[in-house]
């Protein structure tokens, strides 16, 4: 049983160490990190209080008195809450099935689960609208049964909620599945020996114990739903539904000197929504208790028996609609010569791929740039993010909470706002001094780290929360501290969660679009920028070809990873 895990690491020592040289550095580092994250936000907030160059509340008074504002806020809250719930339900259910039951092909499923996260959301949306459109597959199927089936209108609040929820459930899944696996079997068995049915056991034992993962995943999904622009734009504009992210964009592109101030003011409102989400998340996490430390237990705990095929069928249908349909629709578009022509043997060709790979030099460069950017961001994230997560869990003081909030906000801001505030912050971090970061590739590194570090922090927090303090105490009495403790004890125990975080950071950075499209310079084009460019020029076929290529590369990466993993396992042998 987790003994003594409530204790903080030597509280007085922590205090004393404030004054030691080594910890001075640590604290300076934290302050620097805060500064990096807070500078853009600070600039943004200042802007929201600026009108005609004066400090004033004017923006707030006008905006808050406008009924439209409240409509937008209401829509936002509805959309974000609804889609987060959808993500939670799908993510947690899938995680449970994969972690505990004997369904087959779990590894292959992992790929399909991640698909919605790597397929650009405008493609997903398009696929969905086509699927459910007037002459889409859905209506064709719907005309089969004798009774009438209502057409589903995606251009609605419900549609936005639905598509957002389905796009972001991987976040919940990825952060939950390993936590589920780490819950000691005996805790479940104790419940069942007490007569609780499986469902009760899940509700009363697994759910509360997996809270760190579920809450972290839900929180990330919440932030992702909040900042998402593509889906509410695509589905909301036709239906005249505004949420904060689209509304802010309208302000940004609006004219006049007050455009930015208005946008900043709305961003502050959005920030407040994000803060409320953070607070709710804390409420849940406060209740969560640390488990006895175990390694992931991958043996199935529940045998579905005769119902197995049914469950598997449902899962694959889900994958089909969330991953395969968009993938196919994207793939098909990428193979035709011109948008809108029918997909027939005559019309397919590899022309578009040839264009991207041979004719256009940009695409290849962008692949390289993005891979490098994403790799470095993920690597830096692992170190900084895990360090922050560790401090946050082991020393939950004001400073570490504050750090967590500052790191979370940039992920919640819509990309456009985030990019603009990066410009505010980094062109002349100190007025009158331009360090040349803006305009070089450095700005993208900083922007990506600022924006995506929270993914790593949450992944690592989830992992650290699974490690009982006694693990570290045992290392300490055995004489290991600092680096050797991390290398030999903590990292091996943290690795699944840390890698999940890094994986999310890597994928997000790899396909990032909005921020890069405002910050790139001509020598540092990223995948997102190139896609954005094609799309704006009306070259949808190139866009889809490029996107397909990237998704294929990602899938290939997965396969290589799995193959080498199983090769490694076989070679090393499961511990004797």
């Amino acid at each position, binding site marked *: 049983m987790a003994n003594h895990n409530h204790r903080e690491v030597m509280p007085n020592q922590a205090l004393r160490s404030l004054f030691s040289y080594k910890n001075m550095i640590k604290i300076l580092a934290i302050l620097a990190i805060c500064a990096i994250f807070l500078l853009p936000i600070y600039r943004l907030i200042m802007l929201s209080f600026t009108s005609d160059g004066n400090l004033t509340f004017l923006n707030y008074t006008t905006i808050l008195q406008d009924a439209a504002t409240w409509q937008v806020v209401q829509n936002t809250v509805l959309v974000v809450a609804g889609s987060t719930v959808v993500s939670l339900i799908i993510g947690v259910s899938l995680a449970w099935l994969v972690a505990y039951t004997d369904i087959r092909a779990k590894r292959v499923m992992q790929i399909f689960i991640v698909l919605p996260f790597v397929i650009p959301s405008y493609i997903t949306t398009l696929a969905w609208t086509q699927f459910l459109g007037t002459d889409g597959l859905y209506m064709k199927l719907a005309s089969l049964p004798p009774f009438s089936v209502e057409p589903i209108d995606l251009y609605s609040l419900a549609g936005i909620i639905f598509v957002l929820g389905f796009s972001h459930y991987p976040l919940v899944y990825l952060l939950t599945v390993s936590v589920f696996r780490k819950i000691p079997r005996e805790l479940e068995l104790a419940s069942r020996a007490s007569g609780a049915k499986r469902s009760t056991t899940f509700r009363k034992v697994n759910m509360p114990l997996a809270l760190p993962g579920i809450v972290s995943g839900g929180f990330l999904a919440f932030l992702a739903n909040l900042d998402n622009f593509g889906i509410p734009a*695509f589905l909301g504009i*036709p239906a005249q539904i505004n949420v904060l992210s689209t509304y802010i964009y309208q302000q940004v*592109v609006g004219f006049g000197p007050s*455009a930015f101030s208005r946008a900043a003011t709305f961003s502050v409102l959005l920030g407040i929504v994000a803060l409320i989400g953070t607070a709710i998340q804390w409420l849940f996490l406060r209740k969560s208790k640390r488990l006895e430390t175990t390694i992931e237990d991958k043996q199935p705990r529940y045998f579905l028996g005769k119902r197995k095929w049914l469950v598997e069928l449902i899962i694959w249908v889900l994958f089909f609609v969330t991953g395969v349909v968009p993938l196919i629709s994207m793939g098909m578009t990428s193979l035709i010569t*011109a*948008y809108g*022509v029918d997909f027939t043997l005559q019309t397919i060709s590899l022309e578009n791929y040839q264009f991207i790979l041979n004719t256009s030099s940009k695409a290849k460069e962008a692949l390289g740039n993005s891979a490098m950017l994403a790799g470095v961001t993920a690597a830096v994230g692992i170190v900084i993010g895990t360090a922050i997560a560790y401090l946050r869990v082991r020393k939950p003081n004001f400073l570490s909470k504050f750090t967590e909030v500052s790191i979370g906000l940039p992920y919640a801001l819509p990309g456009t706002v985030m990019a*603009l505030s990066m410009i505010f912050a980094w062109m002349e971090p100190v007025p009158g001094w331009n360090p040349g970061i803006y305009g070089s590739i450095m700005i993208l590194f900083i922007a990506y780290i600022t924006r995506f570090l929270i993914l790593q922090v949450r992944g690592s927090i989830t992992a650290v929360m699974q490690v009982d303090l006694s693990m570290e105490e045992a290392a300490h009495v055995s004489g290991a501290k600092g680096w050797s403790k991390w290398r030999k004890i903590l990292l091996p125990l943290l690795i699944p969660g840390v890698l999940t975080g890094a994986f999310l950071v890597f994928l997000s950075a790899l396909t990032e679009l909005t921020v890069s499209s*405002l910050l790139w310079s001509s*020598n540092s084009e990223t995948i997102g920028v190139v896609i954005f460019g094609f799309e704006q020029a009306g070259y949808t076929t190139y866009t889809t070809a490029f996107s397909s290529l990237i998704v294929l590369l990602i899938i290939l990466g997965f396969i290589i990873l799995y193959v080498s993993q199983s090769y490694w396992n076989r070679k090393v042998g499961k511990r004797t």
Partner: protein
Amino acid sequence: GCGQAQEGNASSVSGELNFYTSQPDADAEKLISAFNEHYPDVNVTVYRSGTEEVISKVQAEKQAGEVQADVLLVADSVTFESLKKQEMLLEYKSDEAEQIPESFVDPDGMYTGTKVMSTALVVNSEKVSEMPTSWTALTDADSSGQVVMPSPLYSGAAAYNLGVLTRNDEFGWKFYENVKANEPMITQGNGDVLKAVANGEKSYGMVVDFIVARAEADGSPVKLVYPDEGVPVITEPIGIMQKTDNQPAAKAFVDFVLSQEGQELAAEIGYTPIREGVSAPKGLKTIEEMSVLEADINELYQNRELDKEQFNQLFGE
């Protein structure tokens, strides 16, 4: 570089030039490499994105300290008008501008149109057999549920069109009210309009001409129609930023874009050139062939927010 110093002052033009544009990537690239043939010592750095993004970036840079752009080329003159009002532009009257219709050149020399992009009708050629000839295709009761157009709230070009059409006696707000009655689909940008029509989701769209011509040439089932009433046009003006730190290069760049060679290049890429005497690419009308719907730029600039607001009210209920 090919070191072809045919112009006397070419060698004195050199250094860095930041070019911010909303032109598609490939087009910008071609433009620059042609420019570099004449001015090999100028290193042009391009920032390319949607007009809205480009302007946001410029504005943000201004807020943050200093605008990095030297030369700006974005969709419409109203946008430039606003920059002009904010005194962000440098006055430069290029000699080349004399060949360009007066109405497309800012009288104060702050910006000059570089090409002509009209907003016309796009029609799905598979769903519609008889091509319409009038904007009424969007307002006919038959077209109910089959109309798509970009949102002026998101697209600068669409906002321009809104301003022009509502100030035109033949159309006015009545036109938009009638469109509204057909329950149109409103998209974020022109690209989405083309897609909706190309894949048959909608039959008629209001969209900028050149992307339709391209898609048509590629084989998409779409057709470009210039309605008889005329079309609003945007001119993708070019201008030099007030704070540019390389005036000679910036001016040389503007000259090149407006020159015969520059305009022929634009036509070759697929745009209607703005310079008289240069022919339009296949599928597009030249400026002389189309009837242009116009409105006073200053008035448009002054009323843009109001127009959008009114649009929002009309369509938002």
